[in-house]
């Protein structure tokens, strides 16, 4: 045990710590701790009142145990008692315990707040300091509410001591970060700004932090701080290294304060006042000059502190982005650091240059360092530095150096660390697309990517190359030839098989004239990979084969033989089997014309933000992916140019039929008007039926291909903020317990719904209202219930009549959707609406709230019956339970209404506990009926619910539980 050096405290604590350290095993440690906990508990519970010292000691032991990683569930009260002690050390330990261990136990917070209030009012600076520290450490909203009004007063009061001022400033900063709403702006703000002139540099440092945080949200209020900060900074940078005494750190005058002042200035544009601006420029120049002076000390602390100020000054120069001279000097300085022997400086230089690359004044200057950066990529031993080098290459890339940078990145990819490969793949894919002047180069680059790092090529990347090939007819022939050649390799990555399969299925005909790539050779080549591929890829290849039947009638029989083989027709995988069966049938019975229509070449994709870019942004967080606008512009002009309007689907073409019997929905009106397809053959029926809701021609691929990822990232083209399908899950929840309402609304369009369901059938009226005074053209709503999706396989049948493609300003049109539930389903269908408004193309996707519970029929039953059935459904798979926090006030009547709205019967006097709710009903689908029982147990005290669903089918229990849990 080392001698405790100062302010000797608690021997008992030291003994305990020694004991713990001497424990030979984790078990022994736990045993010792449990013994101690029992001891402390008995002391706290004992009859004998503990004196302050013992309390302090035990609380301290508890704290130590907690810091070892064990849970502590008592002692809080004793710690709070210590707060009101008059002895400094007891108070101090009490506050420490609270700071480290407090939870939002409201009872306790009130007591703590009381103690804090007393200490703040004590006018004893040490006690005030402790109280302020405690507030800053806990920083909860309750504390903000109690003290946010008080602290500014302490901060600006004339008689407050400097040390208390410092604490008050940072305490307020902490509260402002978590609860800005409780911190009132007022007269005190101008007095805080003047703290920048304070004599005491510690006060200035703390105040600068506070002002910076406040100024970010209230720039107007703190505008006067700019000139004060500049003059303060100027005094510091021109001071001799000893002027500031203890605030000089290794010969650098007040480095922390300098950095903070430079940070504060980054909340504002360059100063308008010419004198202030001139003075600031002088400061920045002085800082840049000092970097060239010989160091005043060899210690790393000296150079670190000096360079900390320098980097912050460079950040400010980049932020202002207005003085070309300073920007170029900054760039040169960073260029020197790129080759510095200190790894830290090389890292920071690369990072800082990244932002410099986006300034038009310095972009060219940054580019001159390209060789150094490429060299860093090859020679740096630290992966985090190499990562910065990749980022910088990405940032400095433009048309002039794209080929070199992409080549270097591809080169590096061969040996790159696994942790950053995916990111590099995304970056290469984006650069290749953005700066492609020559599409053959683009296609080559992506195929190279797949070859080098196939495992790291995410779906977004290969979807994108296909989108681009489909949209650019001048590259299709080359793409077909290139993938054909790449597929010759004996071992090629599965992603290449996917791209190859898709592209040859669409454009194999463009190279079929060459006897070396005749239809049969193409087919045999692809089929040679078939057996090595995963199910989704094989599914995609089957679609390629059926496309070949249309492209190359001469190999139809070969393909039919393959489809007919047992390994296809009797495949254990239901998706593969179904495709084989249906494609075989399609190829046998359909005429050439029908085949040509169904298997027509894919139409161009609607233009949208590259999903790769979206993915990179997601990976790196917003803000790190720069010049998005530019990428968009460039892509518009070359890669995807002029393709936006054609992505219309052929699903809906006749006039709307006014349907009046919303409420008179017959028992089975659908079956008479349009016979629903049988469940096994639905794909074929859908394909042939002219009113079917199929989108576009048959795409060679499963849901893994296009429909879902593209819709999911439908951050579409228009100036309207994109409405992603994802957000629309909220909408789904809104409609779970009701059938009518507004589904979607933006500045242009409102979509309203009215619907009714009976047994397994339903009818939905969709109302599209044009909110503008301008016509919508090419107005095309499309329903997408992806029957390729395995889960959804023919589970819901949607039929609709199309609407008029022109919607006049202010007009409303309606569309009727007839719905049949074939079997239970999870996903809701998607409603995609495309139209032209003014000159722009609009694309909106929302989920249509057709959820499984809509096919509920209530069932009344007595208590006895209910529990008998409840017991019968006792298999663990049949039950689904969810315990969740109430999102809405727990009101009995509302809850009842929601359960009824959900579709089940609400059974009264069934549950022995009257506070619980039970319900029963039957889900009707065409194939089967599923009995469902539900029980909802509210716990008012905890504001929680427990919801239990029991049905005869696992997926149904799961889905109903998901849907209903969101309602309370």
């Amino acid at each position, binding site marked *: 045990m*080392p001698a405790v*050096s*100062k*302010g000797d*405290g608690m*021997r*008992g604590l030291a003994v305990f710590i020694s004991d713990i350290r001497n424990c030979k095993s984790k078990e022994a440690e736990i045993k010792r701790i449990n013994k101690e906990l029992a001891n402390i508990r008995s002391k706290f519970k004992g009859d004998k009142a503990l004196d302050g*010292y013992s309390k302090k000691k035990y609380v301290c032991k508890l*704290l*130590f145990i907690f*810091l070892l*990683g064990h*849970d502590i569930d008592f002692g809080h009260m004793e710690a709070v008692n210590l707060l009101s002690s008059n002895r*400094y*050390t007891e108070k*101090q*330990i009490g506050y420490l315990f609270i700071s*480290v261990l407090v939870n939002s136990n409201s009872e306790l917070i009130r007591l703590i707040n009381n103690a804090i209030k007393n200490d703040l009012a004590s006018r004893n600076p*040490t006690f005030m*300091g402790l109280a*302020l*520290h405690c507030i800053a450490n806990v*920083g909860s909203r309750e504390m903000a509410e109690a003290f946010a009004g008080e602290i500014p007063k302490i901060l600006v009061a004339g008689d407050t001591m400097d*040390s208390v001022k*410092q604490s008050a400033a*940072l*305490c307020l*900063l*902490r509260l402002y*970060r*978590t609860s800005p709403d409780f911190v009132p702006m007022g007269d005190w703000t101008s007095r805080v700004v003047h703290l920048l002139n304070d004599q005491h*540099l*510690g006060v200035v*440092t*703390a105040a600068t*932090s506070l002002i910076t945080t406040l100024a970010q949200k209230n720039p107007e209020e703190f505008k006067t701080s700019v000139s004060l900060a500049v003059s303060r900074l100027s005094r510091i940078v021109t001071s001799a290294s000893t002027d500031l005494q*203890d*605030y000089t*750190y290794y010969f650098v005058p007040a*480095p*922390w304060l300098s*950095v903070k002042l430079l*940070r504060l200035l980054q909340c504002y544009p360059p100063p308008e006042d010419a004198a202030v601006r001139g003075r600031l420029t002088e400061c920045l120049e002085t800082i840049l000059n000092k970097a060239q002076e010989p160091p005043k000390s060899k210690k790393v602390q000296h150079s*670190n*502190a000096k360079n*900390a*100020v320098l*980097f*912050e000054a460079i950040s400010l120069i980049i932020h202002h982005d207005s003085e070309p001279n300073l920007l170029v000097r900054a760039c040169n300085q960073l260029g020197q650091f790129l080759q510095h022997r200190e*790894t*830290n400086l*090389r*890292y*920071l230089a690369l990072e800082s240059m990244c932002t410099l690359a986006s300034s038009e004044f310095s972009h060219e200057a940054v580019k001159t360092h390209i060789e150094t950066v490429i060299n860093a990529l090859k020679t740096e*031993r*630290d992966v*985090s*530095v190499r*990562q910065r080098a990749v980022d910088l290459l990405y940032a400095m890339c433009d048309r002039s150096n794209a080929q070199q940078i992409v080549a270097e990145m591809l080169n590096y990819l061969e040996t790159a660390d696994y942790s950053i490969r995916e990111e590099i793949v995304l970056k290469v894919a984006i650069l290749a697309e953005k700066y492609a002047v020559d599409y053959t180069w683009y296609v080559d680059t992506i195929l190279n990517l797949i070859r080098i790092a196939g495992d790291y090529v995410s779906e977004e990347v290969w979807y994108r190359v296909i989108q681009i090939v489909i949209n650019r007819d001048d590259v299709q022939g080359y793409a077909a030839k290139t993938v054909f050649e790449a597929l010759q390799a004996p071992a090629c990555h599965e992603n290449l098989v996917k791209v190859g399969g898709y592209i040859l299925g669409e454009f194999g005909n463009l190279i079929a004239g060459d006897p070396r790539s005749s239809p049969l050779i193409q087919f045999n080549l692809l089929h040679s990979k078939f057996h090595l591929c995963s199910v989704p890829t094989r599914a995609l290849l089957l679609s390629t084969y059926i496309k070949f039947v249309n492209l190359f009638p001469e190999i139809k029989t070969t393909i039919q033989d393959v489809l007919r083989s047992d390994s296809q027709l009797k495949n254990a995988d239901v998706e593969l089997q179904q495709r084989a069966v249906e494609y075989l049938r399609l190829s046998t019975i359909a005429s050439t014309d029908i085949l040509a229509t169904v298997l027509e070449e894919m139409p161009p994709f609607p233009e949208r933000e590259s999903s790769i870019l979206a993915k990179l942004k997601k990976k790196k*967080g917003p803000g790190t992916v720069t010049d998005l606008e530019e990428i968009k512009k460039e892509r518009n002009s070359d890669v995807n140019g002029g393709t936006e309007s054609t992505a219309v689907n052929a699903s809906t073409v006749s006039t709307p039929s006014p349907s009046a019997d919303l409420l008179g929905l017959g028992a089975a009106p659908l079956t008479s008007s349009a016979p629903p397809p049988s469940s096994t053959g639905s794909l074929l029926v859908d394909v042939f039926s002219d009113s079917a809701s199929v989108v576009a021609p048959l795409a060679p691929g499963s849901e893994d291909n296009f429909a879902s990822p593209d819709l999911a990232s439908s951050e579409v083209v228009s100036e309207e903020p994109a409405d992603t399908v994802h957000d629309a899950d909220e909408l789904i929840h809104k409609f779970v317990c009701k059938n009518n309402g507004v589904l979607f609304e933006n500045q242009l369009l409102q979509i309203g719904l009215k619907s009714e369901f009976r047994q397994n059938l339903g009818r939905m009226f969709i109302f599209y209202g044009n909110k503008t005074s301008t016509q919508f053209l090419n107005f095309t709503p499309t329903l997408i219930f992806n029957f390729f999706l395995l889960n959804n396989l023919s589970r819901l049948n949607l039929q609709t009549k199309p609407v008029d493609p022109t919607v006049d300003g202010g007009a409303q049109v309606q569309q009727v959707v007839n719905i049949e539930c074939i079997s239970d389903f999870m996903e809701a269908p998607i409603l995609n609406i495309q139209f032209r408004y003014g000159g722009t193309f609009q694309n909106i996707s929302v989920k249509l709230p057709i959820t499984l519970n809509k096919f509920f029929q209530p069932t009344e039953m007595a208590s006895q019956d209910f529990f008998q059935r409840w017991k019968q459904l006792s298999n663990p798979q049949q039950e689904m339970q969810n315990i969740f926090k109430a999102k809405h006030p727990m009101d009995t009547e509302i809850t009842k209404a929601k359960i009824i709205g959900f579709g089940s019967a609400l059974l009264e006097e069934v549950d022995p506990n009257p506070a619980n709710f039970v319900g029963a009903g039957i889900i009707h689908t065409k194939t089967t009926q599923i009995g469902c029982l539900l029980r909802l147990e509210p716990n008012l005290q905890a504001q929680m619910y427990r919801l239990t669903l029991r049905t005869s089918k696992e997926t149904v229990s799961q889905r109903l539980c998901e849907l209903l849990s969101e309602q309370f």
Partner: protein
Amino acid sequence: MRFMLLFSRQGKLRLQKWYLATSDKEKKKMVRELMQVVLARKPKMCSFLEWRDLKVVYKRYASLYFCCAIEGQDNELITLELIHRYVELLDKYFGSVCELDIIFNFEKAYFILDEFLMGGEIQDTSKKSVLKAIEQADLLQEEDESPRSVLEEMGLA
């Protein structure tokens, strides 16, 4: 600054200070994850790394790692020196500080850190004023304490 951790080469956490409310579960997860990342790094590597959405600045002093998580716009180098200043403060207070001092006087390590940093921002950069505050507190402590018997200290009385 979001948080500061002190841990040993063996992965034992010696001190943790959080400047943003975080649940205990999340804290444990972050500590475990970050220790793993930092301990895996080699001596000559750079002191900064990106971790989750934060920047991590760390430095090793003898057997102890000092590790700060800061936000995107914060200055890495000045954070590195902030760590150094804290080490200097500990050193001055304990007199050539070692890991054991921090283990046995963890509460002092917290008090010193609290005098130096508050809400994740530096409160005073002057070594003198921080130490003065701590020494004043120690003086108060000594005045407080009356001598006690050894038995009492051991909790045996």
